[in-house]
């Protein structure tokens, strides 16, 4: 089926009815669900927040105001830059990267262990245990961590019982709960791509390397990791994008003083009702995170086609 083919060939291959249905569904998805909404949001982000009566009128012109707001703050403000929002942005990106690396370190050994063990009952039990938390709502998972890290949470309760501390430690405002929650929310998206790739690695290669006298570290560096690179890249991409775009965990676990960038977007939409400003912020988030992912893919020489396998 892999011969060169253009539209006429496609319909010849599938028949007019089936070919038509397939084309319609795919076109609907790509154009109506993916491309047009994104373009519409992009267009929206360059407009003023006008009352409904003025929409489409002479005042409805393009502007860079919404983007300027993110960088310089409201017009006529005293400071040079909108430091509050920019700090939130930088913090979101850096923290998402940190969460990604933390997940990688935590998952790699397990992915290796699961991937290289034969499918015994124990291994399958482990896999089942891995999947169970993923079926729980994201909100509930974040909330479970809140029960653990809260002021009267399990950890504070235990530590006070032992006498380690006499005042509850504020895990929430220290953002420890948030990072734990973000790592927790997306840990399986790191694990399973790596597991799938490592499973396909021939055990004999590792045996051979070991017989040749390679050290444990060297085996991983020269044999396992190069083979697992697509899986690692795929997992890291997904975890980074999802943590940077996370909303549930920051809302439930975030401290009172520190916000996540998506929370700003949410506020523009739902509290301030300035959709244009929110769209601009969303575009910035989208472009920045895609740029970061592409840069890292370039550095580590990974193809887009490896993602999702």
């Amino acid at each position, binding site marked *: 089926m892999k011969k060169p083919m253009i539209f006429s060939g496609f319909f010849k291959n599938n028949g007019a009815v089936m070919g038509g249905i397939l084309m319609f569904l795919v076109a609907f998805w790509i154009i109506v*669900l993916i491309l047009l909404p994104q373009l519409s949001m992009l267009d929206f982000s360059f407009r003023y927040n006008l009352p409904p009566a003025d929409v489409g009128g002479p005042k409805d012109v393009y502007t860079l105001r919404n983007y300027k707001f993110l960088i310089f703050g409201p017009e006529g403000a005293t400071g040079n830059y909108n430091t509050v929002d920019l700090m939130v942005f930088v913090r979101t990106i850096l923290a998402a990267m940190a969460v990604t690396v933390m997940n990688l370190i935590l998952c790699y050994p397990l992915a290796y262990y699961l991937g290289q063990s034969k499918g015994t009952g124990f291994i399958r039990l482990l896999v089942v245990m891995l999947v169970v938390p993923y079926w729980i709502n994201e909100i509930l998972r974040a909330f479970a961590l809140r029960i653990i890290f809260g002021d009267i949470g399990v950890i504070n309760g235990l530590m006070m019982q032992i006498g380690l501390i006499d005042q509850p430690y504020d895990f929430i405002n220290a953002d420890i709960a948030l990072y734990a929650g973000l790592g927790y929310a997306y840990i399986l998206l790191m694990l399973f791509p790596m597991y799938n790739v490592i499973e396909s690695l021939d055990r004999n290669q590792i045996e051979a390397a070991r017989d040749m006298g390679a050290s444990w570290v060297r085996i991983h560096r020269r044999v396992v990791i190069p083979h697992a690179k697509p899986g690692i890249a795929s997992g890291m991409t997904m975890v980074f994008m999802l943590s940077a775009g*996370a909303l549930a965990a920051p809302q439930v676990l975030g401290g009172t003083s520190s916000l996540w960038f998506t929370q700003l977007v949410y506020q523009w939409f739902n509290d301030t009702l300035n959709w244009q400003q929110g769209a601009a912020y969303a575009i910035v988030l989208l472009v920045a995170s895609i740029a970061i992912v592409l840069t890292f893919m370039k550095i580590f020489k990974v193809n887009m086609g490896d993602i999702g396998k």
Partner: protein
Amino acid sequence: MRSNILFGRIALAVYLVIFFGYLLGPLVVMGITAFNSASFPSVTPWQCFTYEWFGALFQDERILNGIRNSFIVGIGTVILSVSIGLAASLVLTQIWPRFRGTYYTIIIAPILIPGVVLGISTLVFWRRVSDMFGDSANFLNNGIFLTILGQSTFIASYCMLVFVARLQRFDPGLTEAALDLGATHTQAFRKILLPFMRPAIASAAVLAFLASFENYNTTTFTFGSYPTLTIELSQMVRYGINPSISALAVIIVAITVFVALAVEVYRRRSKVKAGEIKPRKGLPAWLFGNVATILLVLLSFVVIAMIYTAQSYSPQQCKFDYREARQIEIQNKIDALRAERAAQQGAVVESTPQEPAAQGAGAGAFGNVFAPNNLEDAAGQGSEAPAAPASPFGNVFAPSNLEDAAGTGTEEAPAAPASPFGNVFAPTNLEGASGTDGN
């Protein structure tokens, strides 16, 4: 060498325990809170074992409504995204190789786009479309319609990945043979490809439903006036909460484990039937050395036992005792405090006639604290404050807080600054105090 292996095993065991502790620990803790009668979900001030939160869950109209909406959205999303995903994967296997890379990038992109962005773009786009059509296209702004579209945008990508994996093992020769034998393309699709894809369709549908059911980021922008379960939960978490959502988590976990174990048992059985594993003699075949079966039976027993005991068990006595103990504790603290204050006032205030009145004021101010429903009120407020769900009781019990309460009683009388306890003599005030005492 041997010690090395032993060390490796211990390290592995420790690592596995840490990893699964991180993964499952929070769920276990949340599960425990579902059975604690404390009105804020917590473990450490353990009050009484109770089932009341399960009852509360099924009486919560908003939760039930949310579940209903989630099901409607979930079914719509499954239909839309499974068919889109299947079509997209079929096109991927046939597309002109030069376009393949671009095409794959486009259809994989929705997985990587933040859910927030998907939600916003769906909302903005369809709002525009409906503006274009005017009032006749009101359904375009409907929350369920928008949510299904927004979620399908990225869930279709997940489905597509599932189908691509299955299609790699499909022999296109089968379809060609069917066509040669005179089948139409539609027949070939229905009779050859669809049956081959059935397992993949089933798993894609399950995946799509789950992804839809638990989606928050996209839905939070598109739900309109049809909040799904996740939206309701997020609002409960932010604006006041009781352990009934822990009860919901317990139910979901139980169902999940049940289904997972059942699938495992089923797989095992079909393997035994196929002769890949030989059953041991002396045991019924279904119970043959199978961890999954044993766990499944145990789980069923636990659930049945819980439902049975829930009919007769009542934590009223325990709750009463707990409250009693709490009150005695508070009483002791207050007595100590009062003694301290009396000592201080004895030093400062010379005139004796005011002394009993001051005591009376103290009792009046503290009277609120004694009233049981008052405690509940305080707890309710504590848990409703989203930023500070600290200890709902902590505020009440903290000695400094009590001092504050007493303090405000005195400071609230700007008209009579002469005596700090002057307002106590006002008859209405006394009535109010005795009124609350009566509770």
